[in-house]
Structure formats: C-alpha cells, structure tokens
C-alpha cells in the first residue's frame, strides 16, 4: 500500500510538473510582460531627479536614489505604519464578521436562504465605492442617525479618533463581502464529518468548531485576509474622503504627487517602496499558508 502510493506519487509528480509548466505558460507569456512593463517604467521614473516646478522627472539626467532617501523621515514612517495598522484592523474585523456568515451559508442556511445571502453579498459589491462612502458618512457622520455608535468603541464622536473609525467602516464595508465570499469556497472544501465525529465523541460544540473547522480553514482565512488587506492598504478614495485630511494613507501621498504636484519620481519611489514592503509581508504570509496547508493535508 505504502509502496503503491509513493510510486503513484512520484510518477504523477513528473507528469504534473510538465502540466504545471503548460498551465503557467499563458501567464508568463501574456500577463507578466503586461505587469513588468509598467513596473519597469515606474522604477525608471523613481530614479530620476525632480526639479521643482517641472512635470515629472528630468530626462537624461544622472540617476539618483534621492527620492528614496528622503522618505527616511519619522513622519513618513508614521504614514506607512498608519496604513498597515488600519488595514490590519479592518481585515481582522472583516474575518470576525465574515467567517460566521460564510460558515452559516455553507453549513446551516436552507438552500434558498444561502442563495439569498450569496446574491446579497455579490450585489453588495456592486455598490460604487463613492456612493458607499457617502452613504457611510451619512449614516455614521455627525448628522447621521448612527453618530453615537462610536461610543460603543469608546470614541467621542467629536474627537479625531472618530475620523479613523469612519475610515475603518468605509473600508470594512467593501472588504466584508470580499472576505466572506472567499471563505465560502474554503469552508466548502472542509469535511463536515470531522466536526460531527468530534461532537459524537462528546466534545463541546465550540471546541469541535475551533479545533477542527476553524483550524482547517486557517489557510483560507489567511488567503481571504490577504485580499482584504491588499484592498485596504492600496485604497485611495476611502481615506481621501472619509479621512478628512487627518488620516492619510500611503496611497494618498502617492496620489498627491501624481495628480497635483507632478512629482512623479517621488510618487514612483513611494509606490515601489510600498510594493516591496507589502510583498515581503505577503511572501511571509504565504509561506505560513503553505506550511499550515502542508500540515492540514497530512
């Protein structure tokens, strides 16, 4: 038995890797150049010196790292930290609220209720981000019916912290359906009988749930979290409008450089830096997913 398995495994291994190459081909040939091209243009731009009053970097001048080094200022470190911190809060909240919904849809809801919920989650995504923002500022803003909700979080509605809460709400409203829909596909592929088995062996329901279903869906949670987190930290419009100029994301700093002051080199440098940091985080997270995934598969 053991022998049969390994031989099948290795045979399929070589064949599968050939298949993998074929599967990757379209992305390598079609998508990668499309992505690398603009990134290379950006990298090039980020190394050009900028002359005040001009539009974009200076052509033909000597390349410089100045656009990067000037970012080593405590104030800028702060903007990066703010962006990552708020993104993390939103992502955690989205998982906390989204997981039960996804679980409910897969395991508990009657067929029509499940369909209704799925349709609503998808429909919710079609709400334009700009309308979403105005609706949220109407609902939870100073003149809105839910202004006092912020007390639940210990925040005085008149304090600057309220602005941050509004940004969190604004992002969460888009990230929640993103995370919930992603989690549905993960939970579907977890064997429900494992949890049943634990229950029949006398485990309390919360323990059966957390020690089996929740643990097994951890890689999926991370994966959904990555989508949500990426959406948050690259978002521009939500902090731009709901942040009132107090809460600025890195994307806002970039936006001003591109749209208003035409300092493309600095904007490009921040973009490249932001991308490198985020990708390092994601690379680490994905290592984690793979390790967890490996465990779950044993």
């Amino acid at each position, binding site marked *: 038995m053991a022998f049969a398995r390994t031989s099948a495994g290795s*045979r*399929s291994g070589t064949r*599968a890797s050939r*298949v*993998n190459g074929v*599967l990757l081909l*379209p*992305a390598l040939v079609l*998508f990668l150049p*499309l992505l690398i*091209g603009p*990134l290379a*243009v950006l990298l090039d*731009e980020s190394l050009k010196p900028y002359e005040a009053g001009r539009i974009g970097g200076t052509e033909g001048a000597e390349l410089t790292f100045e656009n990067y080094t000037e970012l080593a200022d405590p104030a800028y470190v702060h903007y990066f930290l703010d962006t990552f911190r708020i993104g993390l809060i939103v992502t955690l909240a989205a998982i*906390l609220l989204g997981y*039960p*919904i996804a679980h409910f849809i*897969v395991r508990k809801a009657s*067929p029509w209720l499940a*369909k209704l919920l799925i*349709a*609503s989650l*998808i*429909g919710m995504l*079609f*709400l334009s981000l700009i*309308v*979403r923002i105005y*609706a949220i500022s*109407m*609902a939870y803003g100073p003149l*809105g*019916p839910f202004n006092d909700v912020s007390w639940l979080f210990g925040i005085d509605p008149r304090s600057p912290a309220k602005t941050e809460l509004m940004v969190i709400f604004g992002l969460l*409203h888009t990230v*929640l*359906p993103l995370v*919930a*829909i*992603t989690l*549905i*596909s993960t939970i579907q*592929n*977890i064997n429900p009988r494992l949890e049943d088995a634990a229950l029949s062996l006398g485990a*309390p329901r919360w323990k059966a*749930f957390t020690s089996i279903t929740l643990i097994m869906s951890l890689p999926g949670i991370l994966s*959904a979290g*990555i*989508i949500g987190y990426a*959406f948050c930290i*690259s978002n521009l419009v939500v902090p731009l409008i709901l942040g009132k100029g107090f809460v600025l994301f890195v*994307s806002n700093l970039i936006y001003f450089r591109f749209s208003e002051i035409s300092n493309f080199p600095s904007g490009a440098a921040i973009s490249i830096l932001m*991308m490198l940091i*985020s*990708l390092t985080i*994601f*690379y680490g997270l*994905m290592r984690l997913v793979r390790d967890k*995934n490996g465990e*779950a*598969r044993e």
Partner: protein
Amino acid sequence: MSKRYADAFFFTGYYGLIALAILFALIPIVIAVVLSFDNRTFIGPFPPTDWSFRWYEEFLTSDYYHQGLKTSLIVSSTATLFSTVIGALTAIAIDRGRFWGRGVLQSLFISPLVIPTVVIGFGVLMFASRLGIVDGLPRLIMGHIIITFPYVVRTTLAALIGLRPSYFEAALSLGATPYQALWHITIPLARTGIIAGAIFAFVMSFDEVAVSLFLSDPFTYTLPVALLAQMRANLNLTIAAVSVIFIIVTIVLIWALDRIAGLDKIVGQGVYGRIR
C-alpha cells in the same frame, strides 16, 4: 463552565456576529437607495426632504453615460474573461507545483493588489505610449487586466487550499491523463473560487476610476469616469442611481441563473456538497 453554557455562549456569539454583519452591511445600502432618490445636490442631513427621480432620468436618457456604460461593459468583461481563464490556470499551477521561484512568482502575480491604482494607471499609460498604443480601448483593457488578475489567482488558491493533492493523484493512478484529471477533478472542485474571482474581477474593474482616468481617450471612457467628470461643481447623485440599478440587475441575474441552471451547479458545492 458546563458544556451546555459554553455551547449557548458559542451560539449567541455565532448568531450575534452574523446579525451584526448583516446590519452593518445593510445600513449603507439602504441609505444609498434613499440617496438615489434625493433631489439635493449636496450631502445634507438624513433623511432627505426633497425627492425625485432625476438621477435615474439623467442616467437613462444621457448618451454620454450610455457610451461610458458600453465601454465599461466591454472593458470589464474582456478583462474579466482574460483574468479568469489565465488566472485560474496560474493558480492551479502554483498550488500544485513545487518549483523554484514559485513564491516569488506568486508574490509578483498578486503585487498589483497593493499598488495604488493611480500608479498602475500612470505606469500603463507610459508603457503603452512607449509601445505606440494611443487608442483608449486596448490601453484600458491592459490596465484592467492588471488590476483584476490577482483577484482570480487569490480566490482560486483559497478554494484549492482544502483540496488534497490525492484527488488529483487518484485520478492519475486510475489512468486519467493530467489534463483529464485537471478538467474533471481540479477545476470543478475549485469552481467556487474561480467564480468568486471572476465576480471580484468584474466588480473591481467596473467600479474602477483611477486607472481608467489615465487610460481613457476622448471617445473611450468608462462609466465611472463619466460620472466623476460630472461631479466637479456639485454632488451628482447619478452615481447612486447607477449603483442601485446595478445591485438590482445583479440580484435579478443571480435569481435567473438559479432558475435556469441552478446556482449550486454554477457555483459548485465543493468536495462534500451540502450536508445537513
């Protein structure tokens, strides 16, 4: 704590969170629907005092918006189709493969997610210009493929996570070719994730402004760009009316799909189907 109390506590938390999530999701949607009937040109106190259908009328009667809608539909569906097919294949290869550079490649494929879209728009504009592409449509499609592709890769990977490689291997050991195994086993099981990715891709593309702003030309502009251009002087709530129309169309489409083909068949049920 006794088992019964613990379970009661667990269920209260479980259903409490579900109720909270639904409430949080619904409030802005209700307000957006109300806004779309608001006659005012500014965000005033809620509820509005003055009602009208003017934003719906504006959207339904303006050629300017129709042209934008047409472009949006072409751009979003082309980009979604491309990203879904190639993105799903890529995700399967990444999930199955154990090759050098896999992690780097995976990071690279999802990198557009963390680049602000303004930057992508600008980068593609410069890149396309160097390639000699000055027409709006190919530029827009290029930009939208970049922003939609990572969603499909991520969601497909998320769906593949629970699947044991042994399903694929079992099929192979039963004599299936890798392509047959892929087509009959892996893709159907990852279907929910692929479809979720396609939906995200379409929605993100359809609502996208910053990329389109840079890539549109005078005759090829997307609907959000058209809507935004009209918001300079006053708040123009046509955008709310458009959202409401699209939410309704989406829900009707899903309902119709369910009636015609069965939502379960389209979305997939995963390995274990629905058990209750």
